Every structure is written in structure tokens, then in C-alpha cells.
């Protein structure tokens, strides 16, 4: 068991380093992130100013905190299944070698993704939040407990996204071409997670649909907890909901891996 733990630690570090090597790529991502942040900031603050209703309780400050924290989390919360090595390996059949390895395929893939996410915080997450703080000032938790809960919530959100991303990639066991499906996953996931519009601003029936999926727990919940919109007892129960979705997504990935492995046929000798 300690040896497996050390292997996972090394994979986490490898995921981290695979991103830190390409500094220019990170800078490029940050610039795109910032432009989109400013456009979204313009849209949502303009909408808040002329809102006909309560705008779900958002103020100019809290809606801009929402925009900049979500832009900051975007690099770390993979709500897409593009560029995943595992997809290519399933397609080429190389996944048979991965399955034969003494490490669990699900664990290894998800841990590597977590390493990438952890790195993305430094060049993408922090600068985005800093820009937000400088431009408009952000609403943040007032107590140390708030920050602690916020960090737990962000970690659970990232974990859920990585676990579900793995499950989506495994569809390659059943489908030959997954590009159309992956595009569909990306747009649905980001929309229902509240990337373009916070979930509380959805029409009621759409909120119900969104909350029946794991997507809001990847982005909306962490933002709510870390910005202090959801605090104390409410934050603890939000985190419990997140933990349930994380377990669900891990179990789904596990189930699909077991079934997919049975379908896998590899030619060669």
C-alpha cells in the first residue's frame, strides 16, 4: 500500500510538471481567460444594474466576484473531455497495456489530472482572482473557517470534474468517434455548472434540472462557499452534497471501466 501511494504521488507530480513545462501556454491561457472574464463581467454587471427582480440577491460586488472566481477555477476544473490521453489510448488499443499495469487505471488517470489541476491554480487561478480584486474588489469570507470550507469545496469540485471526465472518456470503449459527444459534454457541463450564468439566475425549472446533475457542484458550489455566499451550516451541507456527487462519479467511472474492459478486444501477438 505505501508503494502504491508513492506511485500516485509521483503521477500527481508528473501531471503538475507536464503543465509547468509549458509556461508560454499558461500565459496564453491566462490572456484568453482574462478577455473572457472582462466580457462576462461587463454582461453580468450591466444585467445586475438593470435587473427587474432581485437578481438572486447578487450585488455588483458579488456578481463580479462570481465572474472572476469562476474564471480562476476554469483552468483547474476540467469540465470537458478534450485532450485526454486516455481517449487516444482506448482508440489505439494501448489501453490494454495500461490495464495490465499493477496500478489501477482509474486511480492513475484521475490523479494525473488532479496534478494538472493543482498546477493551473498558480498561473491561471490566482492571477484571475487578483485581477478581479484589483478591478472591482471581491466579496470574500470573513472568517478562517470560511476559507477552510472554501478550500474543501474547491477540492471536491475539482475531484468530481476529474472523476466524471474519466468516465466520459471511457465512452470510447463503446463508440469509435467521440468528438461530437465530447463537444456536447463540454457545452452542457459548462452551462449547467453555471459558467455563463450563475445557476440561481436560471428559470426555476432549469435550476431543478441543473441541480439534478453533478455539474453545479463543480463550479457553482465552490464559488458560493469560497465567496461566502453560502456559509456555516449551509456550507457544510453543500459540501456533503458535493461529496455524494464525487462518490457517484467515481463509482460511475469504476462501473464503466469494469464493463468496458470486458468489451475491449485487442489484436496483435
Amino acid at each position, binding site marked *: 500500500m505505501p508503494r502504491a501511494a508513492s506511485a500516485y504521488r509521483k503521477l500527481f507530480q508528473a501531471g503538475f510538471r507536464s503543465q509547468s513545462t*509549458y509556461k*508560454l*501556454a499558461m*500565459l*496564453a*491561457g491566462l*490572456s*484568453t481567460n*482574462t*478577455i*473572457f472574464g*472582462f*466580457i462576462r463581467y*461587463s*454582461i453580468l*454587471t*450591466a*444585467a445586475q444594474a*438593470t*435587473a*427587474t*427582480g432581485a*437578481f*438572486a440577491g447578487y450585488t455588483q460586488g458579488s456578481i463580479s466576484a462570481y465572474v472572476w472566481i469562476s474564471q480562476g477555477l476554469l483552468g483547474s476544473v476540467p469540465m470537458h473531455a478534450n485532450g485526454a490521453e486516455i481517449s487516444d489510448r482506448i482508440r489505439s488499443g494501448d489501453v490494454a497495456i495500461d490495464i495490465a499495469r499493477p496500478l489501477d487505471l482509474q486511480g492513475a488517470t484521475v490523479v494525473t489530472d488532479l496534478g494538472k489541476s493543482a498546477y493551473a491554480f498558480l498561473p491561471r487561478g490566482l492571477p484571475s482572482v487578483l485581477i478581479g480584486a484589483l478591478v472591482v474588489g471581491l466579496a470574500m469570507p470573513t472568517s478562517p473557517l470560511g476559507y477552510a470550507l472554501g478550500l474543501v469545496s474547491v477540492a471536491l469540485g475539482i475531484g468530481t470534474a476529474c472523476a466524471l471526465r474519466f468516465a466520459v472518456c471511457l465512452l470510447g470503449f463503446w463508440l*469509435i*468517434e467521440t*468528438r*461530437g*459527444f*465530447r*463537444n*456536447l459534454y463540454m*457545452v*452542457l457541463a459548462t*452551462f449547467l455548472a453555471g459558467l*455563463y*450564468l450563475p445557476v440561481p*439566475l*436560471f*428559470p426555476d425549472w*432549469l435550476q431543478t434540472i441543473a441541480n439534478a446533475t453533478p455539474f453545479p457542484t463543480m463550479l457553482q458550489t465552490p464559488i458560493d462557499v469560497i465567496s461566502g455566499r453560502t456559509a456555516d451550516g449551509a456550507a457544510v451541507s453543500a459540501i456533503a452534497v458535493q461529496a455524494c456527487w464525487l462518490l457517484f462519479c467515481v463509482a460511475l467511472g469504476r462501473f464503466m471501466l469494469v464493463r468496458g474492459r470486458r468489451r475491449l478486444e485487442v489484436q496483435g501477438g
Partner: protein
Amino acid sequence: MASAVQAFAPYRVILASRLRAQAAYRGSFVADLFGSLCVAATEFAELWALFHNIDSLGGLDWHAMLMVFGIGEFAFSVADLLVGHLDTIPTYIRAGTLEAFYLRPLSLLGQLITSEIGLRRLTRMGVAVAAATYGFAANDIDWGPDVVAMLLLTLVMGVALFSGVFVWAAGAQFFLVNGSEFTNAITYGGSYASKQPSSIFPNPLRVFFTFVVPVAFVAYLPTLWILGLPGPEFLPSWLAWFSPVAVAVVWSVAWLLWRVGTRHYQGGGG
């Protein structure tokens, strides 16, 4: 005339082969069409859900916003269909396969543009046309020759502008390599900005999207002019007639960047 037709003949053959290639894998093509439909439908849903909370955004009501959304989405999706695949250049550069294009006796840009035609974007265009049509029908528009002229000018210039921006981004790739994502800020960021009323932007951003990456000319200014609405600071609606100037500037920059970039390229060796 005959020589011009002859010059384009190789491109026509390449394009025809690409069209056949896409039709060959019917299942995956249908999935792509559906995926692209969902992208556009989701963008539309965002706007619709936002208007659940507001009556107007930046001085435009729902029907006027449909025009902005529809025209902007149309211009971008047509440009994306025609030249959007230029964003695969970083892959060619990194893999060192761009040299093969240099060796052929055809223009590099011409080959890359005709190397694919993204038919899957047709569904996205469909959503755009539907939104714009509804927007035009729902608004009280005083249809005359000038409005028709403005509409035609807008559609042609919008497509030309985004196509220029794609070439601009492609030219920059020769210098960026690993930083290929830099240009997404102006291509996809530009597309996103073109579908918003510029009046909501803080001044620096408004200047950026009017004079640097002039996407305000794509949908917002023409919509203001057609509806007879006044523009915000720096943006009187008659500016809409100057979209050819914006396109000329974008294409000049695109041409320059492409020229410098292709001269700068040294190849991957091998």
C-alpha cells in the same frame, strides 16, 4: 477568365475530396452536426436565461438582442466553416508537417483554407439564421432599400472580418508555437464580444473591440442603425456604414502577419 478558372481548379479538386471525406463517415458526421447544434443552442439558452432576469441589456431589448446574436453568430459560423480550420496550424508546425504544404506549387494559405470545410458548422449557422430572422420579424423595421443595403453589407462584411481575424491568428502562430492559445482571445473572444451590445463594455474594452479587433461592426452597430437607435459614447450608429474600412484594416494586418510569419518559418528539420 479562363486562366483564373484554371488557377482555382486544383483547389476545387481538393475541396471536393474533403466534402466526400466528411460524407463517408455518416455516423460521426451526424454526431458532429448535432454537437455543433448544441453549442449554438446553449449559447442561445444563456442569452434567453439571462433575459429571464432583465428586460434590456445595454439599451437593447430582447428582440434587438436577437438581431445582434443572430447576425454575430451567423458571421462567425460562416467564417468558421470557410477558414476556421486554420487554427490547426500549430499542430502542423509542431509535427513538422507544414513543409509538405510549402513544397506544393500552390499558395500556402490557399491550400490550408481548402484543406477542410467544416460542414458540421452548418447547424450552428441554422440557429443563427433562425434567431436573426425572428429578431428581424419581431422588430418594427422600416424596410427600404437602405435597410436592405445595410443588411447585405453587414452579412458580407461580418464574414470577411472574422475570416481576416482567423488569418491574423494563423499568421501569429508562426511566432507563438506553444502559446497558440493566445489567439483564442481575439478569435473566440472576438466572436463572444460581437454578440454583446458594446454599450455594456467599460471604455478600454469598447475601444479594443471597435478599433483593435473591430467586432462592434459585425452586429451591434448595424443593429443600432437598422433600429434607428442612438449609440453609446464613441459609437454613433452611422459608423455601421464604415464596416468595409474595418474589414480592410483587419485584412491588411492579416496579410502582413501572414507574410512575415511564413517568411519567419524555418521548418522543423528532419
